[in-house]
């Protein structure tokens, strides 16, 4: 069942103010399988995507001034797993990847990130993430999205990577194995990407680990601005993002039978992500000189 035209409309005030005509047309052209009440079965709504895209487009173009390359590596229609590095205290990198892919794919494609469960325990936040097409990271959800031909985003470092301290910038945490196993099982490619810039949008001083554990959160940050400036302290610095997508990697099906092969494939993906980060750092060095601190 396709969504009715009434549900396809964006909030005209927001869209008109923030989106150029061509982008409005792209959002309205995005096809969402309506489960009967204006959302797909995952809870994604075109209204949610449209409003978020109106804001994210502005951030993408004018705030983070994203420079990206390698969009030809993203499948135009078929399912794939998009895997990269994670950083920056709040997941602005995920928002920028989603926006970047949506802007540069034809027809527009939505990357659906597998999100940590704690998000869905929080009032409003869980509903917001769901309406934007971001789903809890369970295997069944992965299977369902892949079966429907979606692009799935995974940060194999986990949510903890958002709270990397300054001295560990651009050093990746170890990767979980799930993305490789699932990609092998479904026979879909893994598209590696590297994000440069998000690491500098906050300066993490320390993590209040005991409090984070007590509240069942991945971390509670102390930065140069948070909590001193209250919620305003969570606003990221307007650092330019450099996003690069690498060639799709096809996972050896033997990863389903052998732990050694799986570990090897995970390392291959990790190396590919690191290569994209390295490319991004190099492009930034040429464009800006030394990275901002």
């Amino acid at each position, binding site marked *: 069942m396709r969504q009715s035209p009434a549900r396809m409309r964006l909030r005209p005030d927001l869209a008109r103010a923030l989106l150029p005509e061509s982008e409005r047309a792209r959002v309205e052209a995005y096809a969402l399988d309506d*489960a009967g*009440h*204006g959302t797909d079965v*995952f*809870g994604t709504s075109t209204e949610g995507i449209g409003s978020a895209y109106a804001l994210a487009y502005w951030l993408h173009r004018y705030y983070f001034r994203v420079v990206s390359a390698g969009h030809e590596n993203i499948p135009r229609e078929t399912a794939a797993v998009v895997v990269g590095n994670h950083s920056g205290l709040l997941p602005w990198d995920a928002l920028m990847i989603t926006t970047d892919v949506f802007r540069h794919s034809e027809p527009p494609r939505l990357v659906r990130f597998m999100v940590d469960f704690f998000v869905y325990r929080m009032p409003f*936040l*869980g*509903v917001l993430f769901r309406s934007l097409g971001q789903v809890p990271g369970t295997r*069944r959800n992965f299977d*369902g999205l892949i079966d429907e031909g979606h692009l799935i985003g995974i940060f194999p470092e986990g949510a903890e990577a958002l709270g990397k301290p300054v001295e560990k910038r651009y050093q990746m945490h170890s990767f979980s194995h799930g993305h490789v196993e699932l990609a092998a099982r479904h026979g879909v490619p893994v598209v590696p990407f590297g994000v440069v810039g998000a690491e500098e949008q906050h300066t993490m001083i320390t993590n209040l680990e005991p409090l984070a554990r007590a509240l069942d959160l991945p971390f509670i940050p102390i930065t140069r601005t948070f909590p001193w400036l209250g919620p305003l302290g969570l606003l990221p610095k307007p650092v330019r993002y450099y996003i690069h997508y690498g060639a799709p990697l096809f996972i050896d099906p033997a990863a389903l039978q052998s732990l050694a092969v799986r570990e090897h494939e995970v390392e291959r993906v990790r190396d590919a992500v690191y290569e994209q980060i390295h490319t991004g750092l190099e492009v930034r060095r040429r464009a800006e000189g030394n990275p901002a601190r």
Partner: protein
Amino acid sequence: MTDESGRPEAERLRSSGAVERPEMGTLRPGRRRILIAGAHRKIAVELIGRLLEYDSVELILGVGDGACPAALVNHDSRRFMYRSASLDRRRQVDDLFLFDQFRERPLDTVVHLAFAGNPKGYDVRRHEYNVNAARHLLDASLRHGIGKYVFLSSDSVYHVGPRGDYKVAEDAELDLDPSSPTTVRDIIDAEFLCRAKMDHPHCEVMVLRPAGVIGGGVLSGLNLLFESHPPVLPIGFDPMINPTSKERLAQDLLLALMLHGKGLFNVAGLTAGPLSRFLEDRKIVPLRVPGPTLRAANKLQRLLGQTRYHAEYQPRRLFYSLVLDDSRFETTFRANFEALDATRTG
């Protein structure tokens, strides 16, 4: 199923005399004789009305506790009979299969809808009734050569939480939390009794797990919420649901009864969406309260007579999504509806 010599199991049992009534088999051909336990339920009334539209249904025995419901008294007495029985009494259950009407042509199908919920708290009598009724009815059905046994369970058996799958299949995690309501545990107990007999060679044992029913005045948790004045929901949460209707559930039950198939199946509504959209569609405006105060607000509402919904029954259902995946039922039963509908006369 075959034995060592390659003979079918049923044939071996017949030749050894182990089966007393060799003509009994899974859904034997001919017109159907159906026992429906829990005839007071609105879903049972709907189901009986639908079954009587089919020529292939010869006789229905409705069983309840007390007098025949008014909605059933006008049915043709040659095709519908009603009896009162306490299903937690083994003898009374056994007697249902021994009426004169069934001497020549015995019952061949049993539907167990008689489940008593009690969200107010632990009640041993209710627990005994629920579990013993399920046990006695199933035991008697197997002893009397029933070919199809259907137990109507509930989607409340599923664990609900932030780790939820977008669609919940039949093998999803069950709510086995010790703090879960006793009624939920009773349903799981009764389900397990059925599941223990699912490989029975002569009886197709089925368990259906329906999504919440909206409308039709039914006593489902979801409908009681919708009938509240106003429904009280937590701020900042809007779970995805795919509720069904009384009519659709009756149709699904009918398919389950009349067509071949056994096992455990989800049955759900046609559409899925956020709870708030279902309320909007019915022009119901909910009252939102902070999550931690939801139970207290619900208790107060019940004291004031504004609702019969118990937030304690499934405390997480108003926070987290539960969308049932009924694709197995769709392909096994709903896809074959046309073949069945050809026998309809009403």
